[in-house]
């Protein structure tokens, strides 16, 4: 990295981590809710 560029890489890393956490977290949340609802349905039907 050239001299004189701001040393703000920490913010970049934080932002990338937070975004990943939010998006992965929501994906997992959706998957779990789907599993819970399908298992409930098979329980009712089965």
């Amino acid at each position, binding site marked *: 990295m050239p001299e004189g560029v701001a040393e*703000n890489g920490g*913010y*970049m890393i934080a*932002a*990338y981590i937070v*975004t990943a956490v*939010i998006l*992965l977290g929501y994906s997992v949340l959706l998957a779990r809710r*789907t599993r819970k609802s*399908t298992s409930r349905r098979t329980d009712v039907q089965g």
Partner: protein
Amino acid sequence: MTLAQRGRWITLGALVLLAGIYVRALRFTPVELHQGPAQKIFYLHVPAAWSAMLSMGFVGLASILFLIMKDARLDRFAAASAEVGTTFCCVMLTTGPLWARPIWGTWWTWDARLTLTLMLFFLFIGYQVLRGAVTDSRLRANYAAVVGICGLILLPFIHLSVYLFRTLHPLPIVLKPSAPSLPASMLVTLLLSFGVFTLLYVGFVMQRYALGETGDA
């Protein structure tokens, strides 16, 4: 394959592509000269904004169509889009200040874009809180549609009012956060990221819609 399964595959695919974006943005896209590495937050923040706006647009559109056609599927789609939009808003509201702090020296400013984001977030939250507070499904769908349509029409007014305010009281901006003309490699990264975030929207909404079908929302 059920809708939920297809949605899950699409989401998975989008997440893998997102990892690709991460690599490309962090490793293979040049660092911006004036802003430094923090500028790379741009490749996540702006596409997230796009997805959030897209979500709201579809909530509004589905709401209008629902009031005309009374098809419950449209209401379900609006609910799904709102929840997904909230997620993207969260990404915006976290990456925004993390970008603002090193560039503008402050975590938050009431500029047009950030204020619009915050209000969009409140709209999504209000929409979902309202849905949660109404037990009758027909009433809930009607109420949600009303708020959805009002919310959509509100957005340009929020933008205009904050923009007018800020141009009359300009902020002491140290560095301009978004360059009007991007060099090619940065533009490509951005466009790819747009694509991935759009795909994420699709995958998320499919799964969330499927949840709505089982009567869980």
